[in-house]
């Protein structure tokens, strides 16, 4: 059993070259999940943006979230579109809403049996998956909460 949900060899995330989302990727390596919140109007926002879509303030703050979420939607890819997934078989992708962060949505894999039944509305908990290498990074994965 590998330590990562999907095999190594998929494209690795790197922060945008304008610096916008570097705090997110750095925080993940420190074991924290951060999303954006507007310091002026309180609107939660994800993915990363320079400006608040509600009040157009540039004063976006990185804010730690609990990592508790709800499955909003999902898919189960079978056909490998990348060499690293050849012969890997199906895997589950979930789109998770974070109720304690204005219901912004994050994408991740649902840990566990790739054949498992997925229930929209099920509670899930974030698990940070580290990829240690020359250019270390971490991903947010999800596990069904008891």
């Amino acid at each position, binding site marked *: 059993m590998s330590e990562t949900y*999907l095999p190594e060899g*998929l*494209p*690795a*995330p790197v922060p945008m070259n304008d610096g916008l989302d570097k705090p997110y990727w750095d925080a993940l390596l420190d074991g924290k999940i951060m999303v954006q919140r507007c310091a002026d109007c309180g609107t939660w926002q994800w993915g990363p943006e320079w400006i608040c879509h509600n009040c157009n303030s540039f004063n976006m703050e990185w804010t730690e979230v609990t990592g508790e979420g709800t499955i909003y939607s999902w898919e189960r*890819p079978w056909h490998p*579109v*990348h060499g690293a997934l050849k012969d890997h078989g199906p895997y589950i992708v979930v789109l998770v809403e974070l109720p304690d962060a204005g219901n912004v949505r*994050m*994408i991740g894999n649902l840990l566990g049996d790739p054949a498992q039944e997925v229930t929209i509305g099920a509670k899930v908990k974030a698990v940070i998956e580290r990829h240690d290498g020359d250019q270390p990074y971490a991903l947010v994965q999800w596990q069904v909460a008891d």
Partner: protein
Amino acid sequence: MSDRTLRGKTAIVGVGETTYYKHGQSPDPEFVLVLKAILAACEDAGIDAKEIDGFASYSNDRNEPTRIAAALGINDLRYSNMNWGGGGGGVAAAVGNAAAAVAVGLADCVVAFRGLAQGQFQRFGKAPPVTAVSGDPAYMSPYGVMSPLQKYAMRAMRFMHENKVDHSVLRAISMASYTHAQNNPRAVMYGRPLSEEKYDDSRWIAEPCRLFDCCQENDGAAAVIIVSAEKAKDMKQKPAYILGAAQGSDHRCGAPVMNASNFPSSSFASLAPRLYEMAGVGPKDVDVVQSYENFTIGVMMAVVEHGFCEPEECNEFFQLENLTAPGGKMPLNTSGGNLAECYMHGLGLQIEAVRQIRGDSPNQVPGADVALSIAGPMVHHVSTDILGSEATL
């Protein structure tokens, strides 16, 4: 306000297509395919290519108007337009932009075109060969979300959950295309019918989609020529008047990491009302529908968002007999569409809408006067248009 409309001011008077090849098998380079499609459209319209004075395309088409105009020896290039956005969301936008240019006098004879030779370039359904990603892909590729289907499947999964939609809906959409292709000798799937069993036995590509829910990828080019309604009257072909066109998407459709406000959607919720208002018709007046099938899931949501049925009525509405010409309630993709005729990035569907208005379709809907064409459902910038016969003016 009344003159701020496209309704009836312009018409499609010529259509042209190259032979359609399996992806990577075109003997011609992409640029040559584009030239051949444009010349075929000129021939169909009965004009000299030198009469063209404008170009409109979409999806970052690689064939620039200046190069085409130089190659064809066009004297005075008056209009060039590229509709932003990937995928096939820009087909009807290109037609609409061409029509708008003609309607206000920026140009007299504009061609909307698209060329694709994926052997020469990268395929859509394959992940690009990169080892690192940033921006939106950084939040998707490491989780195995890379192909167009993988990026859009969750919109449909949520829609199907909220509205209790059965997989039979997707199967009916796929079978409508394959059924129509059997009467169209040009179709890649001509002579290769699809049965319910064959559909049900096909492999998953990404749940909720099976193999037959996904379009082919082809090489080829297509073009349509747009002129003013006055000029169209005296030309070789029966004009297909542009009654309305709309493009765009609703609130934060393009928000990163799948945070669109209206997520279980094909992106047409705000466009369809605008389209019908301009065209002066409603869904009940539409005789035939062409809806770009990148995937059947997008067609399902686009048809709902264009008002043909309520979201919770999908299971009853999407029955094969309702979707096939000549007698169905809403004949859909009557050439075989992207699934079974050819994937010409949707312009083939626009040409089929013209054929229906002319009365030339291989699956003609008797007396079709109003034809709807839906482009690129689920991408973040979509477009849609309505063509009408002279009787609708």
